[in-house]
Each structure stands twice: as C-alpha cells, then as structure tokens.
C-alpha cells in the first residue's frame, strides 16, 4: 500500500485531530451514498477503501487499534430495496440493480399505457436518471409521487432530484445570501445599535462613545 499519510493528504507530523479531519473530509467526498446511482460507484468504492485503509494504518501505527466512529455502510436512498414492497416489476428492478439500464428501459417501454402505475413511473424515472436525462427523470418521479403519495421510496427519489436542483450540491442557489450570516460590519453596527439603545435608557454599553 502507498504511504497512508499521502493518501489522506496530511504530513506525518499532523496531529490526530488533523488526521481525523482530513479523513472525514475525504470520506464525505467519496461517500458511497452519493454514487449509489452512478457508473462511478466502483471507482468511488475503491477510493473509499483506500482512505479507510490509510486511516486504519495510521491509527494502528499510532495507537495500536482501529478507527473509532468512521463511516459505516451506506444508508439513505439506495433505491430498489428488495422486499420493501410487492413489486410488479421485479425483473426490471434486478436489471437496474445490475446496471443493465438499456434492457430495463426496453421492458418498461413495452408496458402498455394502461398498465403504467406509480411504480412504472418511478422505475422509468430511475432509468432516465441513470442515463442522465435529469429533466424527464424528475417529471417521472413527480408523477409517481402524485399517483402514490404515501410511498417513501418514490418520495425519497423525488427529494434527491429536487435537492440537486436547489443548488446545495453544486450550482447556483439564488436564495443563499452571498455574505453568509454575520460579518465584522454586522457585528460592529449591532454593537453600535445596542449602545444607542442603552444610552436612550440612561445606561451605557460602550463607555468610550
């Protein structure tokens, strides 16, 4: 294995805290949850394994035991949880899970319009999402949620699509203020305000003005 410090991007003299932080940042970057529906899954898994091993190795070197906490197996939406519902499209789910997207799409397209239920829209949305047709994927997820509002699987997929659109995972978020919550100017002006208020009432917060 290559130098574990190099893998985490820290110097061998880094403190335990720095190493933990570097590990956390990298783990966030490569976390398998993000890649659950992507052809990059294998590559991300490999990277994750690499940094896990590096972190373990450093900890073993330093303390003689493994990492605490760390990131466990992926939770969240990984789609197609088998047995979660009585699926009428088990074969399609299997195809999607094994990455045979074109085959899955062919079967879905062969389903006559009158048999297209909420699950059909969800699976078609998943296929489109994997292919990168994000606009139609979102429309299909919305349709699935409209047809079956109580289904957690469908609403999780729609939520993920909507979150990505909001700009929090990259892109531009028009609602976020550019300056963040509170800067030095805000603090000064607030203090001046508070001082004025105190003086009105006969007190004084900042004695020099």
């Amino acid at each position, binding site marked *: 294995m290559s130098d574990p410090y190099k893998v985490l991007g820290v110097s061998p003299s880094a403190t335990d805290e720095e190493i933990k932080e570097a590990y956390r940042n990298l783990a966030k*970057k*490569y976390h398998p949850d*993000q*890649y659950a529906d*992507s*052809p*990059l899954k*294998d*590559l*991300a898994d*490999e*990277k994750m394994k690499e940094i896990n091993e590096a972190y373990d190795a450093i900890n073993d070197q330093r303390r003689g035991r493994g990492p605490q906490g760390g990131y466990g197996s992926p939770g969240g939406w990984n789609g197609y949880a088998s047995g979660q519902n009585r699926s009428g499209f088990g074969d399609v789910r299997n195809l999607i899970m094994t990455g045979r997207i074109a085959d899955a799409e062919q079967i879905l397209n062969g389903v006559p319009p009158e048999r297209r239920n909420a699950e059909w829209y969800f699976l078609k949305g998943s296929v*489109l999402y994997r292919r*990168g*047709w*994000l*606009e*139609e994927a*979102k429309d299909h997820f919305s349709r699935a949620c409209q047809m079956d509002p109580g289904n957690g699987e469908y609403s999780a997929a729609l939520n993920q*699509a909507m979150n*990505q*659109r*909001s*700009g929090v*995972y*990259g*892109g*531009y*978020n*028009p609602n976020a203020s550019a300056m963040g919550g509170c800067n030095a100017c805000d603090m000064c002006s607030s203090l001046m305000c508070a001082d004025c208020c105190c003086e009105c009432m006969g007190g004084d917060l900042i004695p020099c003005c």
Partner: protein
Amino acid sequence: MFGYVRPYKSEMLVREFEQYKAVYCELCRVLGREYGLLARLSLSYDLTFYALLSLCVDGAALSQHQGRCVVNPLKKCTFIRSEGEDYRRAAGFSLLLMRQKLLDDRADEGFWKRLGCRIALGLTGRKARKAAGQYPELAALAEAFTRGQAQAEAEGQGPDGCAEPTAVLLREAFAGLSGCDGGQRTALGEFGYFLGRWVYLMDAADDLEEDLRRGRFNPLAAKLGLESGRALTEADRDRAAAYCNEALNANVARMILPVNLLELGPFGPIVENVVKKGLPEVQREILFLRVHEKRRGARKL
C-alpha cells in the same frame, strides 16, 4: 461552442489565474501556428478548458516560456508548453467545431451572414481537412454532433433529447483524453456528459428570449409553455430563470461526483474552480443579472 465554461476569477489564486492565462495564450499560439490566422478566431474558454483538462490527465512534460502576445506584440505573455499532443488536439477540435458551427449558420442565417460563412468555410477548408486527418475521431464526433442536433430539433424533442448530442460530444471527447486507465475514462466520460448537458441548457436558456422573438426552435419554450411571437412578461422571465437554474444545478450536482474522483495533478484546483465556482457564476450572470440581455439592449439603442 459558446464560452460558458470558464473559471471564476475572484476565487482563484493569482498563481492559478496566471497558469490559466498561460494555457489560453499557448492554445492561441498553437491554433495560429497549426491552422492559420482564421482558425485563431475560434479560440474560446471552452476549448481552453478542454486543453487544460488534457494537460491534467495526460501527464506530458510541461515547461514555461516568456514571450510576446501573438496578436498584440506590445503585450508580454507567459506560455505553458506541453511535450504532448494536448494543445494540438484542442486546436484541431476547436477548428473542427468552428467549421460545424459555420455549416450550421450557413443553413439558417440571413444573406450577409450566410455569405460570411461561405467565405470562412472556403478559407479554412484545407486546414480543416488537415485537422480531420490528424484527429479522425474528433472529426467524426463533431459531424455526429451537428447531425444529431439537427435531428433532435427537427423532431421537436424536449430539453433532454436536444441536450443529448452535446452531452455525447463532450463525453466521448473527454473520455478520449485518458490513456488506458478504465476508471479515469469512466469518470472523464461522465464529467463530459453532464458538462455537455450543462453547456447546451445554458445556451438554450441564454437564447430563449431571442429565439422566441424570431420564431426559432428552443426546447425550453415548449417546456415552459411559452409561445413565440408574444413578448415575455417579467413574471415569465423570472419563471424561466428559476426553471433553467434548477435544471443547470441538477447537472452541476452530477458532474461534481466524477470530478472528485479524477486525479488532476497541478491544475486540479483550476478545474475544480471552473466546476464548483465558475459554472454557478455564469448561471448567476446570465440568468439573474442578465448580462447578455443588457448588452443586446444597449446595442439596439
């Protein structure tokens, strides 16, 4: 292409900005040297990014040189040269894409523009054949792109269908940059696919108003329920900006994943700046500050 893929200067280190400029200048120099003066006009931010990415993943030996700007001899410039194919390939791709744009414009612009396109096509013909001979795979991609685009628009497809040719163009062009490393190839292809979608959608959003006015096809018009010929209200504009911004965000979110997995080397921070800061800034400028619209308006007055 369209010049939307660029870094956000305010968030760059001075050193990074100078490197970026040096890559830009070198690409300009190579374009002129390999394919002549007219080809130099095809220089763009997009192809500079392609060259930069190529430098990142190719691993050819690089060296820095001082010289004078090839267009303005009074200006001093730094050039980052490469021992590899990087710049020549980007220059060839740039010329081939410019030719496709000219062929496209020759078909549907006004008389004077058509005449200009014919002249430019005639003058670059020999050089374009040279580029196509050197990079047959890029020439095939550029041709397939124009054909696919025309077909998708003729069929009146939605935003996803119309963005597909650009997405495939960049997917294949980016994937072709990696040597034999399978993992990097997949990541580069995935990055290119979503960047291509982003570029197409950004361009469609930028042109939406003019397309509606001139009665030209735009996949976003049908999606937003806007009819051509009718003037847009302020509410329509805000709705269109919000929708386009969301659609673009979805693509940025998907391209950050492969970018994180790429091994980019010394220019990595510039590539990350482009994806994580530059693209959002372009969205802000075009959709919310409407810089192009204001420029167009000023020209009319």
